[in-house]
């Protein structure tokens, strides 16, 4: 026996490590809709295997919990079983010696609270409330339900124009989304089980870059009905597009000088090139949509006038007001809001930040947008100040990394205290209170708390506040529209407003600031429901035949990621950052698609929604 040995993992352990990684990816690929009781049981079984076996509550208790939950699922348990499960789990939480048992039992308690009705349905009726509504994970998670396996197959065959046609069936903004969509579709991609999610947005980008001009379909015969859309952002234009295709007369009222909403006045052109956005909007308008820009509903024309003039209204005003931090000195000169800065940039009024020290307050995508814009406007130094840690930022990780690569400083765990102004009333510095990261909140994000450290002074010539946007809803309240706490408009999931005939609303103004694709999805839903409201049942479909899937090769291989232009070069201009895939990459990446529209449940039910 040696006195000490170097730790070397055995072969079995190495394989188990590999299996852990496979399992993590597999959990990531869980489709929505599974029976939560069944999932809880199987998570518990994993916990059971982890117990070290020393203490009674964990070694035996977890097994008994598992037996009881299995009885709920498969047996004929007494009604009182839920109480027994709850009591047992509580005792394990109270008496287990370490986290292995405590945390496992807590998992069960969470489930008993979170999905008690599922438990009860199993006990009382031996039935399950869970069901797979849409078996294609990417389509299920795309708010607009775009036929993703369909267009990936078309890209694979080089039919990029058909891919664009197929996308437009559910989303009239294939180009904008190809560049800036947050791609929720990729989150639960089944390919995760094999290697990694498909680069769906990258493939869409390839499709739109290589499609050439794709003419729009002919609208249906005129219905004689008229619809006004208030707000010409992605949601409003989507509703306008489908309603016009259905044959209704559509007029879009836009307060700003130009259409596009946050795609123009929020998203900088280095992410979404301006000429592409303009071409896409022009293409949408080509189906026959009237546009009134620079008209503020509420000032230039009243809501009630519009209501009288049109058969139906859709409110999609977005969330364009800035939120204030409320700290001392916020009204100093050269303290500006992100909304204001991005709006000016949207109208091509470029401020000059040459040689300036810029401080950005916030940690979301908008904060990153202004950080990276400030760099491009010539700032000497840009510091992004955030209350929590970098991993807690709501901005997409690649945005934060991109900003850092371009030279931004990310200063974390700093809560803004006050703004120091010079004699002229111009901002001179931001004072912050250093924070210590603390307990998790309900969503599992750790809260910052005041650290026992002296406040910090961050010198600044310009301070940009990017802590969120609000909704300019006060004009609507007088017309009988219900405004909720937080300023959002009250509308149901069908975009109908309660108690207001013929008025619909959706997008950021209903949900609070969200994403382009969610606004598009709301516009699509509104179009369908407005069409029904007006007494029609027009169907939107793409006359594109999706290629039949071939027998797939499941061999694991890497995901093709899109590269960026060199940081040193791109930080000097507003040209597009991201490089598209090559043909070789697009063919390889698209061939990784598992075609869940065909293989598995998709061929049976819900694999393809051909029209809506």
């Amino acid at each position, binding site marked *: 026996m040696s006195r000490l040995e170097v730790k070397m993992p055995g072969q079995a352990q190495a394989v188990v490590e590999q299996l852990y990684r496979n399992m993590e990816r597999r959990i990531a690929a869980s489709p929505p*809709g*599974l*029976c939560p009781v*069944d999932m809880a049981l199987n998570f518990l079984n994993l916990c059971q295997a982890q117990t070290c076996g020393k203490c009674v509550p964990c070694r035996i208790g977890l097994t008994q919990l598992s037996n009881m939950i299995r009885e709920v*699922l*498969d047996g004929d348990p007494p009604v009182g079983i839920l109480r027994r499960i709850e009591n047992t789990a509580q005792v394990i939480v109270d008496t287990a010696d370490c986290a292995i048992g405590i945390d496992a039992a807590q998992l069960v308690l969470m489930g008993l609270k979170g999905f008690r009705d599922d438990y009860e*349905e199993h006990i009382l*009726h*031996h*039935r*399950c*409330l*869970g*069901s*797979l509504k849409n078996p294609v994970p990417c389509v299920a998670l795309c708010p607009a339900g775009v036929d993703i396996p369909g267009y990936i197959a078309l890209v694979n065959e080089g039919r990029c124009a058909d891919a664009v046609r197929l996308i437009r069936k559910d989303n009239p903004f294939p180009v904008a989304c190809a560049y800036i969509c947050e791609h929720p579709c990729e989150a639960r991609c089944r390919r995760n089980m094999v290697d990694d999610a498909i680069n769906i947005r990258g493939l869409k980008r390839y499709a739109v870059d290589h499609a050439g001009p794709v003419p729009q379909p002919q609208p249906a015969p005129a219905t004689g009905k008229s619809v006004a859309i208030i707000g010409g952002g992605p949601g409003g234009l989507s509703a306008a597009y489908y309603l016009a295709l259905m044959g209704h007369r559509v007029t879009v009222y836009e307060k700003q000088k130009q259409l596009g909403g946050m795609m123009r006045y929020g998203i900088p052109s280095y992410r979404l090139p301006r000429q592409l956005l303009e071409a896409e909007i022009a293409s949408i308008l080509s189906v026959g949509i009237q546009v009134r820009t620079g008209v503020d509903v509420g000032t230039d024309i009243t809501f009630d006038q519009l209501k009288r003039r049109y058969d139906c209204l859709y409110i999609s005003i977005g969330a364009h007001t800035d939120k204030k931090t409320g700290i001392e000195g916020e009204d100093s000169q050269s303290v500006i809001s992100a909304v204001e800065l991005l709006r000016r940039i949207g109208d091509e009024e470029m401020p000059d930040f040459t040689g300036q020290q810029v401080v950005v307050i916030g940690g979301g995508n908008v904060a990153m947008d202004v950080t990276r814009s400030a760099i491009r406007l010539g700032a000497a130094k840009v510091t992004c100040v955030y209350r929590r840690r970098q991993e807690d930022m709501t901005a997409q990780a690649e945005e934060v990394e991109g900003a850092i690569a371009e030279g931004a400083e990310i200063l974390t765990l700093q809560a803004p205290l006050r703004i120091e102004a010079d004699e002229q009333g111009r901002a001179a510095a931001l004072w912050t209170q250093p924070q210590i990261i603390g307990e998790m909140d309900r969503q599992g994000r750790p809260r910052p708390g005041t650290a026992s450290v002296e406040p910090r002074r961050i010198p600044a010539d310009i301070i940009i506040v990017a802590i969120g946007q609000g909704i300019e809803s006060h004009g609507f309240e007088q017309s009988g529209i219900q405004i909720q706490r937080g300023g959002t408009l009250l509308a149901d999931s069908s975009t109908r407003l309660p108690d207001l005939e013929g008025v619909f609303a959706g997008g950021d103004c209903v949900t609070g600031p969200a994403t382009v694709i969610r606004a598009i999805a709301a516009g699509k839903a509104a179009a369908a429901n407005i069409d029904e409201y007006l007494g029609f049942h027009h169907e939107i479909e793409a006359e594109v035949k999706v290629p*039949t899937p*071939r*027998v797939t*090769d*499941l061999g694991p291989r890497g995901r093709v990621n899109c590269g960026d232009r060199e940081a040193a070069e791109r930080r000097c201009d507003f040209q597009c950052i991201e490089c598209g895939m090559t043909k070789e990459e697009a063919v390889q990446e698209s061939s990784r698609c598992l075609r869940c529209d065909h293989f598995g449940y998709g*061929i*049976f*039910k819900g694999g393809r929604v051909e029209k809506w």
Partner: protein
Amino acid sequence: MVTCSMDGRTLTVPKGSTILKAAEQAGIPIPHLCFLKDINEIGACRMCMVEVEGTERLVPACNTAVTEGMVIHTNSPRVRQARKTNLRLILSQHNSNCTVCVRSGNCQLQRLSHDLNIHFQPYEVQLERSHVDLEVPIVREASKCIKCMRCIQICDKIQGMHIWDVAGTGSRTTVDVSYNRSLKNTDCTFCGQCVTHCPTGALTVRDDTNRALRALADPEITTVVQVAPAVRVAWAEAFGLPKRQATTGRMVAALKRIGFDYVFDTNFAADLTIMEEGSELLERLSHRGKYRWPMFTSCCPGWVRFVKTQFPSYTENLSTAKSPQQMFGAVAKSYFAEKMGIDARKMCVVSVMPCSAKKAECELPTMRNAFGNPDVDVVLTTREMCRLFRSDCIVPGDLEETPFDSPLGTGTGAAVIFGATGGVMDAALRSAYFLATGTNPDPDAFSKIRGGKPWKEAVFSIPGIGEVRVAVVSGLANTRRLMEAVDSGRVEYDFVEVMACPGGCAGGGGQPIRDGAELASVRGARLWQMDARTPVRFSHENPDVQALYRTYLKKPLGEKSHHLLHTDHTAWSVEGETSR
């Protein structure tokens, strides 16, 4: 065309053909369970797996297209192993109590385990909990379900009713009534198409043979049986009789052997239905403004349930005439009972029907006589009749041809075609023409609405009445399309015949089951042949129906007819909720 090699043979098949189809054309059988052509090609049972050279894994033959140069092996060692293992897995969740299963001898799963030489089950058998509800005619035994999903697909795609659905998730995934309802609380039409397309005994039609046997055993009770038109062209399939022996006469002889006191023909009541419904059509046509259009046939109980739940505002468009089954029962317990001096309360009327929905129809509160007794006491399906024959060890092929009893055993050519899509319309038009003009048309004058198309339409001119726009539809998904077209005003008809089952009663949910074969058109064609060969081809020329009117009913739509032969479709409601 693409060329492939299968088991060493070179095959050339049309582009896009599946491996299964190519194999079928070449006479190479590939076992399969869940596959149902054009309806369920989902590759769920994995019994049709084959080996394709150059592909690492096995591929399902039912939904993989043949590609140029493909080299396919349907019986390699890997394929053999895979089939056996997958079949044993299916069997580990199947209640293989074959000896007491109604599908024994006509079960794909049983046949396959026999053919694949499965005599050993290494897996623990774990059966799903079954709760059997005999209140409704359609019975599901979960422990026999192999989750092939055919019932869901038939109900979705062919009938458009979405009664069955996948329930639960993960390894507990099963088939159940959609939206966690129970069958009696749904708008299920009880058409039974799910039953005739089930590969096992998981879905069956409730067996009521014991109720018939109890009546037969009671010396106090006079038993009267009626046989629907579509039964006579299908029953012999269960016995594999050659066409020459598959006759109506042998079926009558077998029913006599069972011990029924009177063996009658629903055709008699079909002719009677035409007299009433044809007169009703003429009445409506001559007072167009008084009625809602179009007029619909009412002989199919699946369709009546459908219209009441899916398009309730059209219930009043249904002909008020009872169906032939119910008219028969009403006449048997009144006219016939009086004529023979039988106490109607001691009469048991049994129907043999190609249909499962008829079982629910005879239980309706509106289908009772003045004593509160049902017009029809027991409904048996064609399959149940065949089982009665079998359990009495009757060898139908050996029996003498026997005619139906008189007087309710007489039917015309116009009646026998009730069993095929378009037949009711054809028969009604023949007699309506006569009733309107006093002269018979050519019995084949209305042949435009015959044939296999699911939705047919035609315009006929009847002197004195003018143009009559008619349509014929079968299958409930087709019916929904027609109803939506009617409702939106896209089509306008005067008279529409609807049959819930594709192809009409010939393809009914109570007919003999042959897996993978749709026999409605073959059986229907035989009914049309019977019509062509019958000397009397007009319902109004049925001598016994004429006698019934002369001596008892007086005239169509008369007072007695009104009480006995017509019904109020609005006087009962479907308790179930619709899924939409």
